[in-house]
């Protein structure tokens, strides 16, 4: 299987007929149904091909509906998987799962949520990338031209901790009912941790989070790149103790995410990178409206949050895209 170019570098589970049939049993969809037009070669991708790759990735059958919905989300003009794959920036689809399915299939939203140790988290994202590679023909060195790449290209999937969150979920924020199973695809790099172990008030922590977010992707980007903030339970507690709900948090955070453009113009501070002179004298938000996604996840102890930087956003690049997960 390595020699045929099917692997992402890790060992694969041989996709025998029996394993693939068992995988297909977990969806009501027919094996020959076309899920998406798969970039970069723009070929029809069937449920069966997704099942084959999901077996190889190590998925249990019950994960298949999440893999299918993820592929539907990324193979849209909005998400622009072709561009996400081809860009020299090290970004990939970051998949956030909401709804009862996360618990039902044993996804991790707690300790080490963005790391290793959970089969569903580890293999769903991997299966999605194997489909892009094997069905779509998108392999590193071919259409995938990433300078460094990142772990989000190997597979990056996790669940939001809904049960212990005092806030509405990411999916609710994006218009879905809490009872619905949803996957949201965000084009992002690997996570970086933001440390704040001393803030005891919401007012202090929100300022600190903003300072960290201002450096997301580059301190000199404004509005052009989105972000995904993963708030840990201990950080979330600062806001819930203060009675801040999601809209209040966003309102307060946005105040500290305003950037004076004069400080980040090309040439400012002896740095050639920066905004063009036409944008001098303005105050602009770091993120476009709706360009910062916030989820609650992580272990119960630890005064850290995680920032996942995005890529060129909107119709010029990639739009965060949510899809209902259908069994």
């Amino acid at each position, binding site marked *: 299987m390595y020699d045929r170019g099917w692997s992402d570098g890790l060992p694969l589970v041989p*996709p025998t007929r029996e394993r693939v049939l068992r995988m297909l049993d977990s969806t009501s969809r027919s094996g020959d149904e076309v899920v998406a037009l798969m970039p970069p070669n723009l070929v029809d991708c069937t449920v069966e091909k997704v099942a084959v790759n999901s077996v190889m990735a190590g998925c249990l059958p019950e994960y298949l509906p999440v893999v299918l919905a993820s592929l539907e989300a990324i193979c849209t003009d909005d998400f622009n998987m072709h561009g996400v794959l081809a860009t020299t920036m090290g970004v990939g689809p970051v998949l956030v799962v909401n709804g009862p399915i996360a618990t039902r299939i044993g996804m991790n939203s707690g300790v080490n949520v963005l790391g290793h140790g959970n089969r569903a988290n580890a293999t769903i994202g991997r299966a999605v990338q194997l489909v892009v590679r094997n069905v779509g023909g998108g392999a590193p060195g071919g259409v995938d031209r990433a300078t460094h790449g990142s772990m989000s290209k190997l597979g990056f999937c996790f669940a939001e901790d809904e049960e212990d969150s005092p806030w509405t979920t990411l999916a609710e924020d994006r218009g879905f009912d809490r009872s619905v199973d949803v996957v949201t695809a965000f084009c992002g790099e690997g996570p970086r941790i933001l440390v704040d172990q001393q803030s005891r008030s919401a007012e202090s922590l929100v300022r600190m989070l903003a300072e960290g977010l201002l450096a997301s992707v580059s301190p000199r980007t404004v509005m052009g790149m989105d972000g995904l903030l993963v708030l840990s339970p201990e950080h979330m507690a600062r806001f819930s103790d203060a009675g801040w709900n999601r809209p209040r948090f966003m309102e307060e955070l946005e105040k500290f995410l305003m950037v004076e453009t004069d400080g980040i113009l090309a040439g400012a501070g002896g740095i050639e990178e920066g905004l063009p002179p036409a944008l001098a004298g303005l105050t602009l938000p770091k993120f476009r409206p709706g360009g910062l996604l916030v989820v609650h996840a992580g272990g119960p102890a630890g005064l850290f949050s995680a920032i996942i930087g995005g890529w060129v956003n909107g119709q010029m690049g990639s739009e965060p895209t949510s899809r209902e997960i259908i069994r």
Partner: protein
Amino acid sequence: MTEPVTVLDPTSEATPGQRSLNPRPAELEGLTVGLLDISKPKGAVFLDRLEERLTAQGAMVRRYAKPTFTKPAPVDLRHEIATQCDAVIEALAD
């Protein structure tokens, strides 16, 4: 001896169509050369210089731009270039 294991093909099983490049023109005099800007910063710096050089060699230059560098060139744009030009140069940037 163990039984051989049969695995299913995870690929599309489709063979992408192979198209060869047109032969390189022996000379540029009288030819129309398309210059495609991918719409990234400073791409025009490179293409402006190419236009000067190509024009000096007697080629006629037509300029095109992708709507965004993050997506493949739209079919209409590719068709336009293919029908209007004898050769094309696509610029990267930064």
